[in-house]
């Protein structure tokens, strides 16, 4: 079976869940190898984890360039690793950076690139990617017809499954090209963790929109989220008003989420918001306007004031959970 390179997304010395999902998908189309860049002293420990989820080889590279410059150092590393072997595909997590890395890599390899796959399966002519189009109103299947398929995959495309493999570490010394130092990262401020699950990875997302009325109004949304162990999302209207951080925005220009349960509170359901949540398994809406378009896609809706409905719901959940 051919080698499938998986670029590993990691943070604070831990592998992020989407990387384990990619390894799980990679096993369908070949033998996964992980590419771990800039993990520092944590690399050995991370490699064990990656091995547990099916990585036969873990290529590690460490260099200041990965942190000091934008995107290109990672492209250089992947290009070098891909060039030293003969991979049958490269999988990368769909994030702003992941997509940029994937596209530049594809161009260098003379390969086609597919972004934002929600599923990847084995096909006769190589991997087949499923994508959502036009605010998730269409589903498409595509494949790369030239070169080594480079595919970016959205979080939650598959549940990570352990499948022990060697996880043999192979250190790589990357030779960076001139372009690698083109864009300097002058400073980096990590987002403070809220202790809640990552928005794109959460099984349940509770969101608030303009109907929440004020930054303080998000209190009832957060309390509901915490009673369910959920992540908190926001509509662009709530973000633009300054009530909630942009990193929590759900929609076309925010995060695209696909949880088991999405609860929209005080959100009308504009097409751009739907683009980010329409593929959720179950959708629940609370809105005081019975005509709000969000009810057209909700599996269950409550027409009412969120400031009455949410606290009652939260209290009931806490009571039931004991």
């Amino acid at each position, binding site marked *: 079976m051919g080698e499938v390179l998986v670029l590993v997304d990691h*943070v604070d010395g831990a592998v992020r869940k989407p990387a384990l999902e990619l390894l799980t998908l990679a096993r369908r189309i070949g033998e996964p190898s992980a590419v771990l860049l800039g993990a520092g002293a944590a690399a050995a420990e991370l490699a064990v984890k990656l091995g547990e989820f099916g990585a036969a080889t873990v290529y590690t590279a460490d260099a200041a360039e990965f942190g000091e410059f*934008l*995107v290109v150092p990672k*492209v250089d590393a992947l290009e070098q690793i891909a060039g030293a072997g003969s991979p049958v595909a490269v999988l990368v997590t769909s*994030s*702003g*950076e992941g997509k*940029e890395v*994937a*596209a530049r890599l594809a*161009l260098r390899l003379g390969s*086609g*690139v597919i*972004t*934002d796959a929600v599923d990847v399966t084995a096909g006769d002519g190589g991997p087949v990617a499923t994508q*959502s189009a*036009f*605010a998730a*109103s*269409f589903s*498409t*299947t*595509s*494949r790369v*017809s030239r070169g080594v398929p480079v595919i970016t995959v959205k979080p939650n495309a598959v549940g990570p499954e352990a499948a022990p493999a060697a996880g043999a570490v192979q250190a790589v010394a990357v030779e960076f090209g001139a*372009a690698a130092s*083109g*864009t*300097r*990262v*002058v*400073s*980096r401020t*990590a987002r403070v963790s809220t202790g809640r699950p990552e928005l794109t990875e959460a099984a*349940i997302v509770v969101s608030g929109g303009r109907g929440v009325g004020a930054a303080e109004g998000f209190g009832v949304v957060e309390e509901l989220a915490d009673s*369910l162990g959920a992540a908190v999302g926001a509509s662009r209207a709530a973000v633009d008003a300054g009530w909630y951080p942009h990193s929590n925005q759900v929609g*076309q*220009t925010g995060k695209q989420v696909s949880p*088991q349960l999405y609860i929209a509170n005080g959100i009308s359901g504009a*097409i751009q918001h739907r683009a980010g949540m*329409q593929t959720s398994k179950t959708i*629940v809406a609370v809105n005081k306007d*019975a005509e709000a378009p969000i*009810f*057209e*896609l*909700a*599996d*269950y*809706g*409550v*027409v009412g*004031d969120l400031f*009455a*409905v949410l606290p*009652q*719901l939260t*209290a*009931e*959940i806490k009571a039931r959970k004991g």
Partner: protein
Amino acid sequence: MSLRIVVCVKYVPDATGDRRFADDNTTDRDSVDGLLSELDEYGVEQALRIAEASGDAEVTVLTVGPDDAKDALRKALSMGADKAVHVNDEDIHGTDVIGTSLVLAKALERTGFDLVVCGMASTDGTMGVVPALLAERLGVPQVTLLSEVSVEGTVVRGRRDGDGATELLEASLPAVVSVTDQSGEARYPSFKGIMAAKKKPVQGFDLDDLGIGAEEVGLAGAWTVVDAVAARAARTAGTVVKDEGEGGRQLAEYLAAQKFI
């Protein structure tokens, strides 16, 4: 010499209308209403602000698209851009992102540039990779996904709000930047702007002009193939209850029945 800014803008199907695929699995651009991608308005806006701050700059808008794409150029010109370039050729139909970046890069080499400004993503394809591909092809730095951008002398700086962190970036011109919808509301064209736009020059190029062979673009030249498209079953409305004082508890009942509690 004055700062040469080129903004890449795309003409896209209106997201609030009906969007669909044509029989050859390409985005249907003929039988639907189109407009300047709303996310590219942010690119035009930032280009204009940079030009205003510099005092000596020229803003060109560039599109690759069918005849109607001239509407996107007109809109950008009426916002205040100085001139436009329209790359239009039958053979471009069906081009994938690798090909589109080739055509844009060749056009940019032709016009010349110090700063290329893009939107964060097109609202139809939503890939968000053209800016990175342009930087790769043109051999200049990419300073992308910026919620804040400024140019001082020959240095471009910006703030990138990434998934896990906020980064401050810096690069030397020439460079490619892309800006997000957090970068600042785009201006509305004024009446004066709309009138003035009618007299602004629009230069047309076809593939020959840019030295690109027909086989390098189009469906046949694409490095990806869309095998099938299917309309997703529309979500249907489920149960809707009116809160008469029990709405929260009723919802809890539903969530429990669905095993979420």
